[in-house]
């Protein structure tokens, strides 16, 4: 949302149009929030990848003599448990670090499943004859009529509560957004000359779909991918919180919150940190998403 300072002027001054990536980066860099988001997201990915090296203990190690220890700066805290310990004497910091793994894994997988399915269906709808297009879009309308979290909740109830099922449910719920987006840009691209010329040159349908048209529809889809990455993390945490996502003792952030609910008035740290981790991650991704949109979406570039 932070605005950019007249990017067109810069472009006019440049003698040669810069490469695509360089152009993208120059737009992206102007959004300071987005760059900050990128750093935080980078840190998050790093933590997710190297949690086993960074964490002082294993996520499920229980130190029964040290239950509900406050963080190090509070009275009674100790450096052996920098962010305190939970009711079972597990190190909060270690659990949070390992939790990053789950959120990262969830985000990637949900986005990949939802985007692949959504893009395929959207492409088909865009290229299909009218009747098929109508059927597909009506189906998507139906899915979108259900509040996403509710639909995911019921789907998980059917599939059985687990992290994998929560991810599948959320991917299904997010899919229609990709379908709509892809279809809209496909239909827009189909009217353009380059597609007509490719057709005239005798390009077959699959080539037309995936090589001619799809790459030109990617910009809004990439932005959507960033935004649904954060939605995936939030909704998985919400399902975990309701007891329908990852099951204890998994150190998933939402599940950790659910486990610590009864201690909220006695031990603020067991509640505060997992939520803060969710908020920071989601915020970073949304900041990045805003930057991506400013940099990629030609409609927004002008404003």
């Amino acid at each position, binding site marked *: *949302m*932070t*605005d950019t300072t007249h990017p067109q002027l810069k472009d006019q001054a440049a003698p040669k149009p810069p490469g695509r990536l360089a152009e993208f980066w120059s737009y992206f860099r102007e959004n300071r*929030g987005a760059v900050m988001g990128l750093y935080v997201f980078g840190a998050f990915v790093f933590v997710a990848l190297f949690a086993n090296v960074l964490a002082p203990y294993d996520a499920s190690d229980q130190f029964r003599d040290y239950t509900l220890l406050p963080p190090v700066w509070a009275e009674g805290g100790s450096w052996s448990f920098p962010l305190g310990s939970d009711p079972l004497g597990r190190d909060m910091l270690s659990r949070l670090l390992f939790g990053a793994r789950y959120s990262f894994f969830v985000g990637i997988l949900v986005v990949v499943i939802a985007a692949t399915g959504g893009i395929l269906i959207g492409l088909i709808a865009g290229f299909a004859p009218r009747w098929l297009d109508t059927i597909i879009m*009506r*189906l998507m*309308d*139906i899915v*979108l*009529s*259900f*509040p*996403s*979290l*509710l*639909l995911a*909740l*019921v789907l998980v*109830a*059917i599939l*059985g509560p687990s992290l994998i099922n929560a991810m599948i449910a959320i991917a299904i719920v997010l899919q229609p957004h990709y379908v709509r987006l892809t279809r809209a840009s496909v239909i827009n691209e189909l009217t353009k000359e380059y597609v007509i010329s490719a057709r005239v040159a005798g390009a077959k349908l699959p080539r037309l779909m995936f090589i001619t048209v799809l790459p030109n529809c990617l910009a809004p889809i990439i932005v959507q991918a960033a935004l649904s990455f*954060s939605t995936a993390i*939030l909704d998985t*945490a*919400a399902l975990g*919180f*309701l*007891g*329908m996502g990852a099951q204890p003792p998994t150190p998933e952030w*939402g599940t950790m*919150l659910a486990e610590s*609910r009864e201690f*909220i*008035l006695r031990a*603020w740290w067991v*509640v*505060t940190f*997992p*939520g*803060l981790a*969710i*908020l920071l991650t*989601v*915020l970073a991704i*949304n*900041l990045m998403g*805003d930057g991506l949109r400013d940099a990629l979406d030609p409609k927004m570039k002008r*404003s």
Partner: protein
Amino acid sequence: MLRYFLGRLLTFVPTFLGVTLISFAFIRVLPGDPIIVMAGERGLTEERYQELSRQFGFDQPLLVQFWDYFTGVLQGDLGQSYVTKKPVFDEFFTLFPATLELSLCAIVLAMLLGLPAGVVAAVYRGKFFDRALMSTALVGYSMPIFWWALLLIIVFSGNLGWTPVSGRIDLLYYFDDVTGFMLIDSLLSGQSGAFLSAVRHLILPTIVLATIPLAVIARQTRSAMLEVLSEDYIRTARAKGLSPSRINGLHALRNAMIPVITVIGLSVGTLLAGAILTETIFSWPGIGKWMVDSIFRRDYPVVQGGLLMIALMVMIVNLTVDLLYSLINPKIRHR
């Protein structure tokens, strides 16, 4: 105009059919045998099982079952709850006012704060105010509201002791439902302190539920305002020498409101999804908590019926928003 109306109304029919079909299909695939759950009897004999299956219509072909369900739905018959044995339809409307009251308060709060925030941000574009407001909005937009609720409980209920943690009103007060809205009913009851108690119970859930819509409205208002402020008629108004407050308030905001109203209308789904979490945390006896409880109790008819009713409500609101939008904005209906 009429054609657009009728066309839009017609799309409602297949969607409604599809939503009914999906909520019908769910009960078939949910784990556990519905007959055993429904009967609630131990050690069912084969004969008893067959008898129950006949009684509930499970021996019929699926298509017939769906047709029975569908015609039932059209007549407002969503089946009975396994747990309370009451009709799902009646339960829904008993609990709905609680959710409606909370949602209305949340959306009013979101608009009261979000609209001015968006306008101020747009007017001071790029300045400190804009950045501060939009950063706050982005934090709100990224908020895991179930955590936000717990934090508010820690601070306001735990440390300060200002607000209660759960329910709609203190148990001291008892009065009959008149409207189902606690704020109105407590006033009507004439019991001193009842209204105040209802308000105190409402504050935290309202803040929690309003958080995301508030952020969305602020962001949307800002971008709509920015778009309008660059229009020619605004420049004309400026050239005429109208005061900035008149331009921003009267000319710009009025036109910026169109997309904002659409967003508000379309956030009903978000509100209901948020209500699931908010109501569960604050033990608010509304639709969201009812759905979550029923899922855990495997009360399938309630899950099925509730899902259908909620989807139906979202559809009706979306339809209304679309039709209203076409009334306000002629560009849509002539496409």
